[in-house]
């Protein structure tokens, strides 16, 4: 029930937004994430965006994972 999936905001209309994931569009409430902007990815939970994904942090995590993988190859 705490499932939340990242969806992209493609348009905003007040406290609602049109979002898209894998070609599927859905209208969601952004009342809980008023900071969400066009093009942002938000975590969608039961019809509400509950948080905005931090792309810089996402990239940092991937960089860290790649470093770990390259280190394990050396051995």
């Amino acid at each position: 029930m705490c499932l939340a999936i990242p969806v992209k905001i493609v348009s905003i209309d007040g406290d609602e937004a049109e979002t898209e994931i894998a070609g599927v569009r859905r209208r969601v409430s952004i009342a809980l994430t008023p900071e969400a902007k066009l093009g942002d990815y938000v975590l969608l939970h039961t019809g509400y965006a509950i948080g905005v994904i931090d792309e810089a942090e996402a990239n940092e995590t991937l960089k860290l994972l790649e470093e770990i993988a390259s280190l394990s190859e050396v051995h």
Partner: protein
Amino acid sequence: MKFIDEYQDNKLARGLAYKIAKRSTKTIRLMEFCGGHTHAILRYGIRQLVPKTVEMRSGPGCPVCVTATADLDKAIALAHLPDVIITTFGDMIRVPGSYSSLQQAKAEGADVRIVYSTIDAVEIAKANPKKSVIFIGIGFETTAPTIAASILKAQQEKIENFYVLSLNKLTPPVMKALLDSGEVKLDGIIGPGHVSVIIGSHPYEFIPRDYRVACVISGFEPLDILLCIDKLVEQIEKGEPKVEIAYPRGVRAGGNRKAWQLTERVFEIGEANWRGIGIVPQSGLKIRKKYERFDADEAFSVSLNLSREPKGCRCGDVIRGAAMPLECKLFRKVCTPESPVGPCMVSSEGACAAYYQYGTPENLQGFKADMEQVDG
């Protein structure tokens, strides 16, 4: 899909698995609080990727599972009242109560509707002004703001026939209750990712401080969970437990303040009844007096018989991490997803459902003894 696919990469997973295996010397026990993590761990074979030194237990993080039978009985009794429409998230409908289920109530003529969102429940109320529409409000901190938002919306739009049966629960207090009981000794907790999107990481600080248990908040993709396990192993090996966020793309230390402020506007903290655990103080959300006209507990009165648990069902033990699903004699024999005895087999987040769906022999390495015990 962006932010999903890249966290499922096989090569990166092997790199992490190698690092964890190299680092791990102590035999440790971790608990994944969240049912979503239990499913991901089984689905992606994470048990096979981590060394035998790392034991993993499922915790109480499945809202449907922890709903007490007495509360479920109340929901079923409400469904039988005249001119009532019950709206609920899907999994709840199949959970057996003491004498019936919401599904059975529906078959007997009650109006029970599955909704995806509280927004849908409010819409049903608008479309049926002559009926009382009750939303069965289960969930943790992730879901509570959405329920608060629905009550505020109903108030704003002057919808007089919308009610919530508030069964919402809070995660840090139940973690404290489990740690206080000492029934299952833990070295680390895989912290709930989406609960933490809302409440941040600070509410867990008591875990390392008071119990010397590590706590790392994790996302739900396999690489997120492996990264979390790596951080937990590192903390435990060093003997330096602390709260860390291994899901920084989703979780900020301060959480989503706006969402939590909204929740606190509508709800106040009170005790809650947890299946398998009992009454835990300060672990539930009650609707504040100001919004009591939306409170199903205030608006409706139902008489209930004494609740009873399904015979032989060990959901309570599974919820506390005191038993693995395979240790329940009913598992896979009497209790299956088609004919569930307890909620842990019904819910898409239930530990028994995860073990049933993904529990191949390879996936359950280390649990042979349990399986033999059950099969024997």
